[in-house]
């Protein structure tokens, strides 16, 4: 029956049309194949290896780094029991950094994209300044922050003088320094998507909203913010996901028991303790947790444009 119908429809079209359609379909497959192959080779396969590795077991009397294939679910229980605080802390730090980056980044993006729309030279200069941090190494910039926040540095000394920081207090090796580092390093990832989005904002809508007696505040919350939601959404994801797994900031600006993030733990399990299954299990837990959090976030706030 179905076959009949299909054939019936096919009969209605010329052979040329069918051939063109097939070619189109095939071109699509060809175009998508390299990407899929790369994904399969460099993402799917490694993830499978990681998953397998996380279940490996250490044989009796094993040499360091010697593990055999197994199915030890207990690896997950062990690392979760030992490292749940670091996991929670990573998400906590990432969340605070994302909110801070949004609060700092949104006005920046708004200024450049909307307020300076008529002044293209100034807009261009500010845009370059926004991207400028990418021109120098991430590690180098974080290292520089360590010097800036050092005990004998200007900031710590000033804060102590103003009695904001106690006389024996310090900034480096504290959660404040780590969160500040995360915020600073991921700020451009927040600003750029919002900028791209606000660049398309139709200011006539704001005029209309004003004409309808909306206060600037109301206009912002009813017009600007909803219209820029896809940018905010992309920015928060681009900030939160790498920040949760980051370990450079935690290692350079923190490196203390109360700043340890999960990335550092994975690094030390892998390279120092040589516990490959433990490190793999933690990596997998991190990946799955991020996936779950992001899914919830998308379900709750996801916008049509991104789906």
């Amino acid at each position, binding site marked *: 029956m179905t076959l009949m119908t299909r054939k019936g429809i096919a009969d209605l079209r010329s052979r040329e049309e069918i051939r063109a359609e097939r070619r189109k379909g095939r071109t699509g497959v060809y175009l998508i194949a390299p990407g899929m192959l790369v994904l399969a080779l460099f993402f799917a396969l490694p993830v499978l290896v990681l998953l397998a590795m996380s279940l490996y077991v250490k044989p009796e009397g094993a*040499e360091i780094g010697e593990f055999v294939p197994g199915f030890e679910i207990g690896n997950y229980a062990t690392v979760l029991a030992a490292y749940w605080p670091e996991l929670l802390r990573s998400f906590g730090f990432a969340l605070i950094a994302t909110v801070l980056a949004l609060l700092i980044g949104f006005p920046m993006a708004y200024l450049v994209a909307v307020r300076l729309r008529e002044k293209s030279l100034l807009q261009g200069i500010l845009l370059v300044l926004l991207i400028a941090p990418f021109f120098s190494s991430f590690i180098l910039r974080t290292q520089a922050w360590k010097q800036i926040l050092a005990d004998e540095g200007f900031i710590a000394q000033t804060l102590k003088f103003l009695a904001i920081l106690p006389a024996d207090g310090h900034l480096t090796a504290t959660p404040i320094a780590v969160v500040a580092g995360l915020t600073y390093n991921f700020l451009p990832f927040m600003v750029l998507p919002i900028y791209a989005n606000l660049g398309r904002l139709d200011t006539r809508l704001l005029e209309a909203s004003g004409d309808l007696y909306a206060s600037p505040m109301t206009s912002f919350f009813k017009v600007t913010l909803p219209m820029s939601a896809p940018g905010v959404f992309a920015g928060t994801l681009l900030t939160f996901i790498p920040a949760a797994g980051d370990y450079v900031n935690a290692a350079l600006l923190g490196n203390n*028991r109360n700043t340890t993030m999960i990335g550092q733990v994975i690094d030390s399990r892998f390279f120092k*303790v040589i516990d490959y299954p433990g490190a793999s299990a933690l990596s997998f837990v991190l990946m799955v947790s991020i996936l779950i959090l992001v899914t919830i976030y998308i379900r709750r706030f996801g916008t049509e444009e991104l789906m």
Partner: protein
Amino acid sequence: MSHSQRRLPQDPQIRALVQAMSQRSYSRRSVLSVAGALGLTGLLAACGTGGSSTQAAPSIKDISETDPTVNWANWTLYLDYDDEKKTYPTLDAFTKKTGIAVNYREDIDGNDTYYGKVQGQLRAGQDIGQDIVTLTDWMAGRIIRQGYVQELDLANIPNSANLLPSLKEVDFDPGRKHSLTWQSGYAGIAWNKKAFPKGLKSVEDLWDPKLKGRVTVLDEMRDTIGLLMMQNGVDIAGQWGESEFGAATDVLRENIDNGQIRQVKGNSYKEDFVSGDAIAGIVWSGDIVQMNFENDDQWEFVLPEAGGTLWSDNLMVPVASPRKANAEKLMDFYYDPAVAAEVAAYVNYICPVVGAKEEMEKIDPELVSNPLIFPTDADLAKAHVFRSLEADEETTLNSEFQSAIGA
């Protein structure tokens, strides 16, 4: 040259592939199966299984004769360097003397991280691109036990007779067949003389309330825990157990938690001393000498009253290096007392070569009396070597230490 006589690559996996491809009647299937096997072994190697499952050392053909180069992986600031010419004078002298060019790399930042980087290749019997690696006693012990290094031919290194008698018998390399000492040093305590004029005598003094938050300790387990254990009256070279180790870890944990210790770091602790974030800590002897030289003599180093640790870094030839003969020539060169003295005058660590002291007279007589380069008997009596650990024990203790330092 006939096709079958072509020199095969040394890498065992690539060799298998080339052999399969050069078989006269190779089919697509045979090549594919080798490629598949390659992919699979690559996958397994990435998994990091096996450890003691050392394959019989692959028959590596020494190409030293035809390829006059040697690749050497070492730690930073560990070889005499001419700042103006941007060259290493003793390396140049070696090249001039032997015609062997040296690719010197400051590749090693930590024993663990370096091991993590290369162990997969070493296990697969592959050339890691280095003909000499420089690793600390306990790590040297691990890779010798795992069969990841080649036996040295001491006949090619006549100067090896100059090795300090105290270093000739070591438990990690019985008979000294696989390694030669590069430099030795202490882990002890140091402080900033201006910020803390009172100074330190023992590890206990680091817990002075005036130093709160300004103390840094090393992330090298054997040094930091070793010093803490000695403070507790334990002989670190003797047969101590997990409870003695645990007691020292507790002291460490407590002082990190209460904020006394601000940072636990590897080589980078030096930056904190220079920036002023750290004013006292557990450190390596040679670093303090170099930092003092560059920063107007701000710090002082001592071995704690209860004792410090003594460690050495050792030169070894990795398992698949095809330039062992060149590597041995280089080792021989650096065991010449005159050359050793030249290096010691720069790196300021304990020189392992007999006769270097006499040669030092000609370079810088002041350094002859420097106990950090030519140690006094009193110092050596205070310096101890952390005993070797069993594989299982090492994993447990390391895990405990890592969790105490919050990593």
